[in-house]
């Protein structure tokens, strides 16, 4: 299991160090920090320090970019993730579940973000006592324990609970929630107005050949729910999943013809831990008791019948050795009544570009030398329209034999529909103990489609 957890700043200084097991940082795991008097702890051969330093020298200060997120130094394995300037590293000497360690590190980031916002050196230093307290709770002897923020916040607070102020009932309520079956929700939540918000957030990914052939396209979507519901509400979520619709269609033939077209084939989906997976597996129904507030109900992936909101048509022509002509047309491909926003097309330019002239029909385009790209921005664009940009790129003659790699043209945008075609059919709420019914709950649904990696090779 995890032997220790360290948080470093970008200089490699330790901000947080929590050692769970003795085995990490044995003598063997020491490093050349011993030889450099510049290290902050010259000559310190304290056990845990060795693992700490080994990581700094071999990963943070390494000249090469990270070649693997798992680094083995002298039989000690370091799992590392980076959030802005901060490195989180979990250390072990055993054959641990690697996927679990990474999931845990992400979770750790989530928990910290939920407590104090952005993960930055400043915030970590400001909250180090809290972080230690969290680390003590969510990792015991290297085994991850309940790490749901909802539950944690009931008894790990920045103020510090004075034990005598809690009643016995409160205490046992905390412990039963932390260990219970529904660890993500506490009892006794009350709202005057029962309300819920559903966001269907999709990111559409595309890789297209210069000739307009789709090399790969998929949508990865998330259904994010914000629930403000009283009690322990039992929820049931329905969408236009092909399998469900076809199953129901067997009974009522006419409905199949109506909704059959609109149903979508979901390649795969994963659910928040509140969803009863065995029920989904057997009946394909999505039922759950939601955590209070915002959470990600499900993630899904589709590859069939994707509505590609934009098509990029590139044309690159080399005029001699010192000039490049680029023409890019973008076409919007959705209902004319809808508006796409925040459109940005990024056309890479060679490293030896000396000057660029751009003409575009719509929006603004600029050559950004520091990014080696022409960035073309359009605020809004309706469906079934097209726009064009042309540019002349002057190149400095070089004797570099290596050809320019021609990175793909990438695009960013946001559209108010789900490119996968997913539709929410219902979200029913039952709370048998309290007297509010499904009709009393105010529900909001919103669809947002964004570009993921949306690239066209040129």
């Amino acid at each position: 299991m995890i032997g220790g957890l360290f948080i470093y700043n970008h200089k490699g200084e330790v901000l947080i160090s929590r050692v769970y097991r003795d085995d990490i940082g044995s003598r063997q795991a020491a490093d050349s920090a011993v030889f450099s008097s510049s290290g902050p702890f010259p000559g310190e051969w304290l056990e845990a320090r060795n693992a700490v330093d080994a990581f700094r020298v071999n990963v943070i200060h390494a000249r090469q970019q990270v070649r693997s997120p798992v680094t083995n130094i002298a039989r000690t394995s370091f799992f590392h993730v980076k959030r802005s300037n901060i490195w989180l590293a979990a250390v072990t000497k055993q054959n641990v579940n690697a996927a679990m360690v990474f999931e845990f590190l992400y979770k750790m980031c989530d928990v910290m973000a939920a407590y104090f916002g952005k993960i930055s050196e400043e915030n970590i230093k400001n909250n180090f006592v809290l972080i230690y307290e969290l680390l003590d709770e969510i990792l015991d002897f290297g085994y991850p324990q309940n790490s749901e923020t909802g539950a944690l916040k009931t008894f790990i607070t920045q103020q510090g609970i004075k034990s005598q102020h809690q009643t016995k009932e409160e205490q046992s309520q905390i412990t039963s929630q932390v260990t219970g079956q529904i660890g993500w929700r506490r009892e006794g939540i009350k709202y005057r107005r029962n309300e819920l918000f559903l966001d269907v957030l999709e990111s559409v990914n595309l890789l297209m050949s210069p000739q307009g052939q789709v090399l790969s396209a998929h949508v990865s979507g998330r259904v994010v729910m914000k629930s403000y519901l009283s009690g322990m509400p039992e929820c049931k979520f329905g969408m236009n999943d092909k399998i469900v619709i076809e199953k129901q269609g067997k009974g009522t033939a006419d409905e199949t013809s109506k909704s059959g077209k609109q149903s979508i084939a979901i390649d795969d989906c994963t659910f928040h831990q509140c969803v009863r997976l065995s029920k989904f597996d057997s009946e394909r129904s999505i039922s759950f008791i939601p955590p209070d507030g915002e959470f990600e109900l499900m993630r899904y992936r589709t590859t069939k019948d994707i509505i590609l909101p934009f098509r990029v048509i590139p044309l690159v022509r080399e005029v001699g050795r010192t000039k490049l002509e680029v023409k890019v047309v973008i076409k919007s491909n959705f209902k004319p009544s809808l508006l796409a926003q925040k459109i940005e097309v990024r056309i890479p330019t060679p490293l030896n570009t000396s000057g660029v002239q751009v003409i575009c029909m719509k929006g603004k385009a600029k050559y950004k030398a520091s990014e080696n790209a022409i960035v073309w921005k359009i605020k809004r664009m309706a469906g079934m329209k097209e726009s064009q940009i042309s540019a002349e790129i002057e190149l400095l003659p070089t004797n570099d034999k290596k050809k320019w790699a021609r990175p793909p043209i990438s695009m960013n945008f946001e559209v108010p529909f789900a490119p996968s075609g997913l539709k929410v059919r219902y979200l029913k709420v039952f709370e048998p103990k309290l007297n509010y019914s499904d009709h009393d709950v105010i529900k909001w649904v919103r669809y947002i489609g964004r570009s993921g990696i949306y690239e066209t090779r040129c």
Partner: protein
Amino acid sequence: MTDSKYFTTTKKGEIFELKAELNSDKKEKKKEAVKKVIASMTVGKDVSALFPDVVNCMQTDNLELKKLVYLYLMNYAKSQPDMAIMAVNTFVKDCEDPNPLIRALAVRTMGCIRVDKITEYLCEPLRKCLKDEDPYVRKTAAVCVAKLHDINAQLVEDQGFLDTLKDLISDSNPMVVANAVAALSEIAESHPSSNLLDLNPQSINKLLTALNECTEWGQIFILDCLANYMPKDDREAQSICERVTPRLSHANSAVVLSAVKVLMKFMEMLSKDLDYYGTLLKKLAPPLVTLLSAEPELQYVALRNINLIVQKRPEILKHEMKVFFVKYNDPIYVKLEKLDIMIRLASQANIAQVLAELKEYATEVDVDFVRKAVRAIGRCAIKVEQSAERCVSTLLDLIQTKVNYVVQEAIVVIKDIFRKYPNKYESVIATLCENLDSLDEPEARAAMIWIVGEYAERIDNADELLESFLEGFHDESTQVQLQLLTAIVKLFLKKPTETQELVQQVLSLATQDSDNPDLRDRGYIYWRLLSTDPVAAKEVVLAEKPLISEETDLIEPTLLDELICYIGTLASVYHKPPSAFVEGGRGVVHKSLPPRTASSESAESPETAPTGAPPGEQPDVIPAQGDLLGDLLNLDLGPPVSGPPLATSSVQMGAVDLLGGGLDSLMGDEPEGIGGTNFVAPPTAAVPANLGAPIGSGLSDLFDLTSGVGTLSGSYVAPKAVWLPAMKAKGLEISGTFTRQVGSISMDLQLTNKALQVMTDFAIQFNRNSFGLAPAAPLQVHAPLSPNQTVEISLPLSTVGSVMKMEPLNNLQVAVKNNIDVFYFSTLYPLHILFVEDGKMDRQMFLATWKDIPNENEAQFQIRDCPLNAEAASSKLQSSNIFTVAKRNVEGQDMLYQSLKLTNGIWVLAELRIQPGNPSCTLSLKCRAPEVSQHVYQAYETILKN
């Protein structure tokens, strides 16, 4: 409130201020002070001096403060075991607290304090907590049993905690179950034979029920535990699979991977005819693909696992090629892994797409990635025959780019294509020859030379080309030299008339002017063959080459099966069994897949390649480059990958051994790493070839240590012992001993380079130690240490370094650095090197001191088998600075009263009783620091016996 202020650097005298604050009456001030202490601890300052003051703050009802104090305790208790006892009472009291959070906190923390004395006190509270009414306390106590087991396994067994832990598997609370399972699994790992996790259909059922209810982490523990179960028949296997499959939709990738592990394992037991088998296969693909939309680090873990799954059951993902296409922004480690899987999935159906992608990749920026992409094109050609022509033309296009490393990589793979499809693509040789001059990497040069030699009859100026290489023969790397030798011999056998001079030249270069045994031996073999029986030479050198198989770098089937049992874990990421990177007994239980049920597929024994390669082709697999790491190493070490046709298997075995060793020392030190196990070629397969190629390991034997015995006058010098074996230090072997001569101590080292690489930039450093030993001068290795070279160095030592008591007292931790890495070892120095020259006490003084030192400080030892008389012993000891103060004869026994002084001023007084005729003598030592006595005795023993 911000806590960052605690991190600000503090001045001297801080400890005193903190001490005052900790003892303050004001609660707030106390808490602030504890926070400051924790902050100092985090940045590595030693605040252990505050131990009693911090422990005094433990008695508080403020939970936050209590947690901080506990944190401090966990860090320092081990270094201050006696004081840690002070905390015990509070712990025991807290375990009775009405608040379950405090009970749990106390039991959790107590388990983290690894002090033997504390564990005794822990037992009773732990026993209570395991049966606590509150599940939160029980789940914490369950983990605490694992902690205690780690400190004192016997105690846990004696106290019956294991049985209580087993009972917790039936607990009503799912989290308690999950933690109990986790704890038991870990304990069971260190007792492979015990039947701790007595898994039977009933307990499995309980676990499966808990699976639906517990947290995501709990689900992982349970699934990992389930994977160790062996169902009794296929029906049970199927019913478990059915209950595990819903987990594939979990948002947590680790839950998904652990579920995949259970399914992959139990699938072995299902008959392929079963409908359910097909359903299961179909269900596995989507979640595996979904893993690729996770964060990059998880993608990497997933890809490494998919790599295994694809080798084991290619049918699962055969239609999913596109998801492995590389994205421009993927981190390099994801790109390289995807590329690997793409090649594995390449088939006739998708080869066009794959090739188009690979061609794109070959124009990317990252050199490693581009190289791998080029290599992949070659592998596609070998794998899918129909595509060979397109691959070759793509490679030729790439050669036209003239990008140096692309050209070189292309030539290396074209060589393999030639071997796979003889007499098909030789027309491109002319193009290849044009690029001869731009090749600067050994592997590419060797490949080109192989091509020239192999097709010498078709290349008009083959002799000129090879001759041009011969000019700089001595500057070439070994693999190029070997290749050149073979190529010229081939050329000679094909065109004997005009190349006689050339072959003479190369043979003499190889045998007379080279000091490389590999090369010399091969040269001699050829020479003798050519001179005794040219016909036989022709048969050997120009023999039919074994076909090469399409699947290179497949993981060896038994290892693959083992790794499948480790899906999701580090072993599956490293593609190595846990024994290769886990120290000690933990996790080295060999796991294996359940035996396949006899069904329609009985023909597919586990020995055949999973891809269904016809049996018997296995031994012909060309040694793979291993993974990327192997590739990189390959470039440096340069094993003769393209060996001469016949010698192929064995030369490569030898070379690969070295490579394997190199790889291992990067990752760990077990000799059986991936490098070694990847290869199927049996070393005995090609007998004649064995002659030609001394195996790598034999090489090091030749240069084995001749342990020189110290013959210098002065104190006794032990023979040099190996302190750091080459295996642990990437080829650097260090042996040494300590000497003391005329008042100066030195460490005599012998450094041997057993690697293939020149070593430079040596430096040495000692850890703080009991007597402050430190290098008095830097480690002077004047010239770079070339392979197989040994150098002797005497490093003067001083005793003015910083002091820290070590366990054992004479332990010395040493770090040695060279241009390759930093290596650590520890050694024990004999105490007599610390005996100073002015260690003779005068009689009066001796008598007074002897009386003065309390009797409990006296230690008595027997020195056996030491048939010396008093004079001989006395003079022997004197040369090691043990001085005889007085001598007496009492009742026929010789009593020697002796004194010695250590470098740090400690006097040791001795009485040595020698009975004539009795080989044993008795040594009584008196010293104010009694812990040195044991070591002084050992010094006596060594001196007297040598």
